């Protein structure tokens, strides 16, 4: 069921979640705060979220966008699982971006699988906000 994301009038709603078992959530919190300051409603789901919990939260919170943060190295196991569940369980396309320690080769593969943007250490908040806005609202 297609839905007209661009016709929504409210603020962008974005889910920020950390799949996997690492406890390093500073990056995710900094990004959450930057997106808030850009006027978005950030649903912060926090640490140790399973792909199932992330997809469930995305549906219930009716988000326009999902941001995943991971530093455990398990991204090749967890991100594709999130994408698969989104495809199976959600009738609309929700863009996904990611951040963390992700080697270039993995990043290439993840982009092919459908992660729309990947940010590593040193990515600027400005760049992240711009990309998130574009992904949620489509090109201006």
């Amino acid at each position, binding site marked *: 069921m297609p839905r007209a994301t661009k*016709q929504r009038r409210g*603020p962008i709603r974005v889910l920020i979640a950390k799949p996997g078992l690492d406890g390093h959530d500073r990056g995710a919190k900094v990004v959450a705060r930057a997106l808030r300051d850009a006027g978005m409603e*950030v649903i912060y789901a926090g640490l140790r979220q399973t792909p199932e919990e992330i997809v469930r939260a995305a549906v*219930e919170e*009716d988000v326009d966008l999902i941001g995943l943060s991971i530093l455990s190295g398990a991204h090749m196991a967890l991100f594709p699982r999130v994408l698969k569940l989104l495809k199976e369980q959600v009738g609309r396309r929700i863009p996904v971006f990611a951040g963390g320690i992700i080697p270039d080769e993995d990043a290439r593969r993840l982009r092919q699988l459908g992660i729309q943007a990947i940010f590593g250490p040193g990515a600027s908040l400005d760049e992240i906000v711009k990309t998130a806005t574009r992904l949620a609202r489509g090109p201006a």
Partner: protein
Amino acid sequence: MTRATPLPARARAIANGDRAALARAISDVENGAPAAEPILRALYPRTRGVPVVGLAGPLGVGKSSLINALVGHLRAAGTTVGVVAVDPSSPFSGGSVLGDRIRLDRPADDRGVYFRSMASRGAAGGIATASREVVRLLDAAGFDVILVETVGSGQVDIAIRDVATTRVVVLVPHLGDEVQTLKAGLFEIADVFCVNKSDLPGADHAERDLAELAALGPAPDGWRSRIVRTSTLAPFGIDRLWAAIAAHEAFLDTSGTRAAAERRRLAREIVDRASDRLAHDLTERMERDPALRRLVDRVVARTLDPRSAADRLLVARSRR
């Protein structure tokens, strides 16, 4: 303007338990989208008036953790629960970080729970209006109990009064002067006081203070506020908290006050709705009609006072 999906189908999907349809309708209500109206209209006759438990209290007293504990308690009994958790929007950026979901600890496949985070979005009265309708959608979607969490200050208290059938005010030991400042507001609307974090010293003292307050307080409808000590860390008291809430819900039925309270809430809602529309209409008229715009000029020039200008605006409206 409106989404492509035809309307009765969307309302039907919600009544049939389609969570994505429910989620989208809640967004439409929050956004004031025209698409929400026919859905709300179609679903209203299906709402049953289920218990709506509001939790209010200062920041950091553990409302989200209590909600999670109550959800666990209710789910263990097979009761389905809809949760609405309201957090403030930034007055500067309009954005917000909605963090109450962090405390939710339920299996991802538990379809007996629906959790929705909501930003207050600033506008006075706006949050009350939207949360009333969101609660109604959850009711129509079939949840047995609805829990609403708000931050306990200013206009938000009013929201809890207008939405909840049972109001729980959550406090912690050693709130001290904070308690004094709350007396006039939240304290008057509490059906149940919850002293959370009662694993900390001072809980007995806080309970005693509240008991004295409850004994002094007027009980116009005959209900005397209950006080329950809880801890989500220890944990203890969650069963007693729910028992106190259930006792109030039962009291509403046995005393016959439920209908009267609902009538008051609905009357306020109708007036709120009508006021919103009237304000919108008057604002538009002022912008559109040059004669009415001149009223502003005259008030600016001090040749007319604001009250008289308002009279003329209302007269102009009633003439057409």
